[in-house]
């Protein structure tokens, strides 16, 4: 068999810049590189010396798609470092904000980035003429997520109200009332989404993956806090993150490769979350999954796509409960900085996110450590590809390339995000 080259110079429909280079020769993979050429942004360097209260705002700028996750996780880490305990109302608002972003991001990914592959289009824009209703449904859901983010956070991208200790502002009651109404109406769109994502034909590929996600106390599906756990027996607190997870800098990529110490790559994200926490999903979400024949857990990364849809429905249900419970009070204690270190973990739309800071008594950052979901996933994506390629090797080159891209996209990678965290692995020694 002759040599096949797969070269995607610029991955479309992913956030950030990456290329895929694969050479298969005589049925064997000679070379496989997910090259993240998104330029490095040196966050962990320039955060040093900045004031603690600027950090949430600054780290939001790591990612335009999941700024909420970065903000909230950094806030958690800093509160941890300074021993601040947020109020119940603050936690409710944070959960709402995080879920609003799940809805927005998941809908964006499902309809605009992933589905065109399965419907046979280049992009969502080219789908408009023939599938206008579907696109409108997508936009409606996405707008709903965004409108909740705006109501609580002030704007869709890089919200302004979340601060260490609480919120600077809460939405007026009539806005919440209106949102509640729209959320109730949106159930249908989300149920449709579950249906559509299970109707499309997902490639058949399973691999023995270790998946990692937050798990929370029994009654709650994890969003912004919890223990870390995997299907292969890991269970640890956020403070112990560095005892279990490390990364190496691989020369072909601007992102680091994360792995479980003593083991290998792992997967984070919606599939990991649903697999690990299925029973904690809102009843409606589980029902919709079952009605559509879904049987979690799946070891097939392509099942991230229906997992997202299920999470959207779950988020809508949870938001309705939370919105009904809001007291609409902005708690914002005044804070005197104090020396310390703190870790934060959260479930970004794309999966587990980790922030860790050391601050001095003037409230300046001394050291920072941030690992994004895509940084967690990058290694696993390569591993997946390694195992997936032999299965599709007989396909024509073009088809093979599309399949590889679809696999990468199933992770909804965010390369700007991942490239922000290049770092020396100095804690390894």
């Amino acid at each position: 068999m002759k040599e096949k080259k797969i070269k995607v110079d610029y991955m479309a429909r992913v956030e950030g810049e990456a290329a895929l280079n694969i050479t298969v020769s005589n049925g064997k993979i000679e070379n496989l590189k997910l090259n993240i050429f998104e330029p490095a942004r040196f966050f962990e360097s320039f955060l040093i010396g900045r004031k603690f209260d600027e950090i949430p705002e600054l780290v939001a700028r790591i990612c335009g798609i999941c700024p909420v996750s970065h903000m909230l996780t950094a806030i958690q880490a800093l509160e941890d470092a300074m021993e601040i305990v947020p109020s119940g109302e603050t936690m409710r608002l944070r959960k709402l904000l995080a879920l609003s972003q799940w809805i927005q991001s998941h809908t964006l990914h499902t309809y605009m980035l992933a589905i065109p592959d399965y419907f046979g289009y280049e992009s969502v824009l080219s789908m408009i003429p023939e599938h206008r209703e579907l696109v409108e449904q997508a936009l409606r859901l996405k707008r709903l997520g965004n409108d909740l983010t705006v109501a609580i956070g002030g704007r869709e991208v890089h919200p302004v109200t979340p601060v260490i200790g609480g919120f600077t502002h809460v939405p007026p009651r009539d806005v919440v009332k209106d949102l509640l109404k729209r959320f109730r109406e949106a159930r249908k769109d989300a149920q449709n989404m579950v249906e559509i994502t299970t109707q499309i034909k997902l490639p058949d590929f399973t691999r023995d993956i270790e998946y990692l996600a937050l798990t929370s106390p029994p009654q709650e599906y994890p969003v912004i806090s919890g223990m870390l756990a995997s299907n292969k027996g890991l269970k640890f607190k956020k403070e112990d993150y560095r005892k279990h997870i490390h990364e190496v800098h691989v020369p072909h990529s601007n992102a680091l490769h994360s792995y479980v110490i003593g083991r290998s790559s792992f997967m984070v994200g919606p599939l990991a979350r649903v697999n690990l926490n299925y029973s904690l999903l809102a009843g409606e979400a589980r029902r919709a999954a079952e009605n559509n024949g879904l049987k979690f857990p799946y070891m097939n990364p392509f099942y991230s796509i229906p997992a997202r849809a299920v999470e959207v429905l779950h988020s809508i249900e949870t938001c309705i409960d939370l919105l009904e419970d809001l007291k609409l009070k902005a708690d914002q204690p005044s804070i005197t900085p104090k020396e310390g270190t703190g870790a934060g973990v959260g479930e970004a739309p794309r999966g587990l996110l980790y922030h860790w800071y050391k601050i001095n008594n003037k409230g300046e950052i001394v050291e920072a450590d941030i690992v994004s979901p895509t940084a967690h996933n990058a290694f696993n994506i390569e591993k997946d590809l390694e195992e997936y390629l032999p299965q599709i090797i007989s396909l024509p080159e073009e088809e093979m390339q599309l399949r590889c891209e679809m696999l990468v996209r199933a992770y909804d990678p965010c390369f700007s995000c991942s490239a922000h965290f290049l770092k020396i692995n100095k804690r390894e020694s």
Partner: protein
Amino acid sequence: MKKPSVGVFKFTSDGGCQLQILNMERELFDLLNLINITYFPMAGVDSGEGPFDIGFVEGAVTSTDEIIRIKEIREKCRILVALGACACYGGIASIKNQKTQRELEEKVYTDLTAVHSTKAFGIDQYVKVDAYVRGCPIDKNEFIEVVKSTLLQIKPNLRPHSVCVECKLRENPCIFLIEGEVCMGPVTSAGCGALCPSRHRACEGCRGPASDPNTPSLARTMLEYGLTPEEVRLKFIKYAGETQAFKEGAGIK
């Protein structure tokens, strides 16, 4: 009227401004009636090498590769628009310019050979820019204003006066006068509708300098409000630390 072709390009950034385009759920269909997006990888559109009638560039230029690429893109675009703080002024990526390149790279890389990082600047450091859509992220209305005015062949009506004007119009309690804290609003370009002060937090200057920013005077007031010179410096060296006005505020000559 033939629909103008539009390209959206990404440099060093977080994709937030591009996402703001996709966040125009309510306007998207109308917008697509007016323009023909032919290059927008994040949205999966890659149907052309150009040339483009309008090119929107997100992100700062931070590497030698990017310097070459921005010049190529300029050649291909009749009108080139800087999208967001990064493309306008270098954005928060330019915070790193305060440290030496070596210092930064050593902190994050084991293998320095692969790194071709340069100081982060807005794109007008290297090419001519026809319009600026400020903010971190951009304001959707301003984006639409730029699209509309390009089609009408007029200058966009973006008023770069202080945020205070919009803030006062919204009858917000002034952060300085009522909260006793400092705010970048007086020297920051309006257009966001005083988003932050309207939600009880200080403007952080994400839209860069206003049209006549008296930054030394504001810096003096900040000191009077109890900030240390270092804290004042941090205020100015954030989203637009490479602009002359904000450098002056930071006390950098």
